[in-house]
């Protein structure tokens, strides 16, 4: 029943670890459910005690891991406001955006033994919701690709550009074309509130996907 605060060592890292692991699983699942890649490359694995689909393709996995590795320091410092998985069509216009809005309370204090299992339960619900999201979304045109955008608070990205967290994996400011979507429809999927993090997931979908 300890009360940890943000000053405690590694606490920010713990939260960032949890979130990055969750984001990795969520991204894989989004790629599977939205059929961005053929389902043959996916394989069932276990996370949070439930089966999830993860890809086996090494380069794809490496790309996702590198992406999240760079995002982690932003989450640790609570600089990341939104992590967005954008699915784009052949002309690189976004057709769908899965937005994870993350916010962490500034004064964190944990006072519960069951906190982590509670968080696990909430994350499990997110996974479940992503699995059934294609009921509410139109199907995508073929030949889509994806990318990950991070919206940060203030000017945190300045540091990122200065310090390459991973060699040869630079982050650049996103193009207007990738960020802006025409006629978006908003579909909320799930929210969660816990002691350590608040997260919201919604989907912005282009009205006409051709």
């Amino acid at each position, binding site marked *: 029943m300890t009360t940890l605060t943000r000053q405690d060592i590694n606490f920010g890292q713990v939260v960032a670890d*949890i979130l990055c692991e969750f984001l990795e699983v969520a991204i894989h699942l989004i790629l599977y459910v939205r059929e961005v890649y053929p*389902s043959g490359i996916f394989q069932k694995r276990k996370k949070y*005690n439930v*089966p*999830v689909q993860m890809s086996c393709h090494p380069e794809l996995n490496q790309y996702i891991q590198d992406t999240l590795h760079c995002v982690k320091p932003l989450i640790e410092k609570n600089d990341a406001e939104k992590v967005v998985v954008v699915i784009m069509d052949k002309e690189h216009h976004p057709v769908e955006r899965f937005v994870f809005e993350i916010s962490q309370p500034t004064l964190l204090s944990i006072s519960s033994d069951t906190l982590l*299992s509670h968080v696990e339960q909430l994350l499990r619900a997110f996974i479940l919701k992503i699995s059934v999201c294609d009921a509410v979304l139109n199907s995508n045109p073929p030949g889509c690709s994806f990318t990950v955008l991070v919206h940060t608070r203030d000017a945190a990205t300045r540091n990122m550009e200065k310090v390459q967290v991973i060699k040869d994996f630079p982050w650049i400011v996103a193009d207007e074309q990738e960020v802006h979507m025409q006629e978006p429809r908003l579909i909320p999927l799930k929210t969660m509130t816990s002691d350590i993090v608040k997260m919201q997931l919604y989907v912005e979908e282009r009205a006409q996907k051709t």
Partner: protein
Amino acid sequence: MDELYLDNIDEYVNDHNKIVTYKWLSLTLGVHVNTAKQMLFHYLDHKRKESSAQLHATYLVSGKFVNKGQASHKVSVVREDKLEDVKAKMSLIVSVHVYSVQKALLKDSGPLYSVDYDAVKDNFQTCSKYSAISCSSAQPTSPLEQTREIQRAPTPEPVAKRPGQNGEAAPASKASTKPPKGIMGMFANKTTSKNQDKEVKSEEKEEAPAVVASKSKPAAKANPMSNFFGSQTAKKPDKAVKDEEAAAQSTCGAELRPQSSQPEEKQKAAAQSPPKDVKIDAKKDVKKDTKKDVKKDSRSKTKRIEDSDSEEEKMEKKKRRRIKKPEPDSSDEDVIPDSPQPMETEEMSPPPKPEVEAVSHSRPSLPGTKIRKRRRVLKSQIFLDDEDAWVRHQSMTEKGYESESYSEAEDDFQAGKPPGKNPVPAKLPAPSREDQKKSQKKASANANKGSKQASIMGFFQKK
């Protein structure tokens, strides 16, 4: 029954976009599972007639299946579009019912499991309340009997029948060394031919499209199940057995294994849903080992997130539709509050106690338990001071907790220490020990030396 349930289901399916399985419905509405199945069926019927929303359903089919002359009992969860196909392939259909209703077309069966997971976890003790399976002679054992069971050595079992049982509902729980043997003992009557049959059957099912949410249970499930009901009369209707299998299977949450999975020695039961364990175990006259597995299983299920994070392991692929539960070995320290047998929990994971290694304290050993555990051991490191005497000097002593894996069966080590040597009980807290040593520094150097020598011998003996 009133028609309110139709609105309820409608709300869940359409407004909340949930997957409504019959088990979840029965737990949520507090009705018997058979009623829930009928509710789902009526709802589906109703909606289809209205032809309003686009609904998808999955069905559970169980029956006899003949594969190359080998008969087996197959239970599958199938999507609606494959239903007729699967039904045609079965030689005898024992039961078909609606498994779930949802708006989205599911690409794989994973979510079906997730849906039930939380509902069952919350109602762990009572999740079998609405179940159709029961065994009146199965009573939960008293804690005393359980500890006795734990200490009893597991019965040896023939190796051949191992592959088949992993898919079994109740017994296929935690993968630690002892429980599998105990469970194996239950299948002592199984013939090897059935196993091969299972393997063949599983391989064949491999050809089924990977996307289809269909899974099959190992063959001849009827046999081990009837072993469980050993005390039941032969008149126990077959249907009940199969229903149980069906229910047990469906409570597994429709694990789909499109790829093959590797048979292993260990009992694999990935994500063993508690209802399966509680339902079947509590209702059978089973060996206590199984019960222990169940407890361990439930314990590990509510493990901390760190453990589950590290468990992102690939299920090994061989053509087997089996549920695996990779378990780290040293998970015994968790004391889970909702474990139904708290006393047993304590037996299994004694609280870590500080213990000074070098001073010859006899380690208390639990009676006869031979279980590997991890414990934190307060180790003192002795340094030679200037006089080259084996004296523990306050300033030179470092105490640290080290996690040590030890086995209770280290009787030889303890025998090495002379018996009447330890005036200080093992659980003495560290500071007072320090003081004692300080005062005894010179005066009892010899005594210490004597005891140290014994302990040193013991140390070498321990290796």
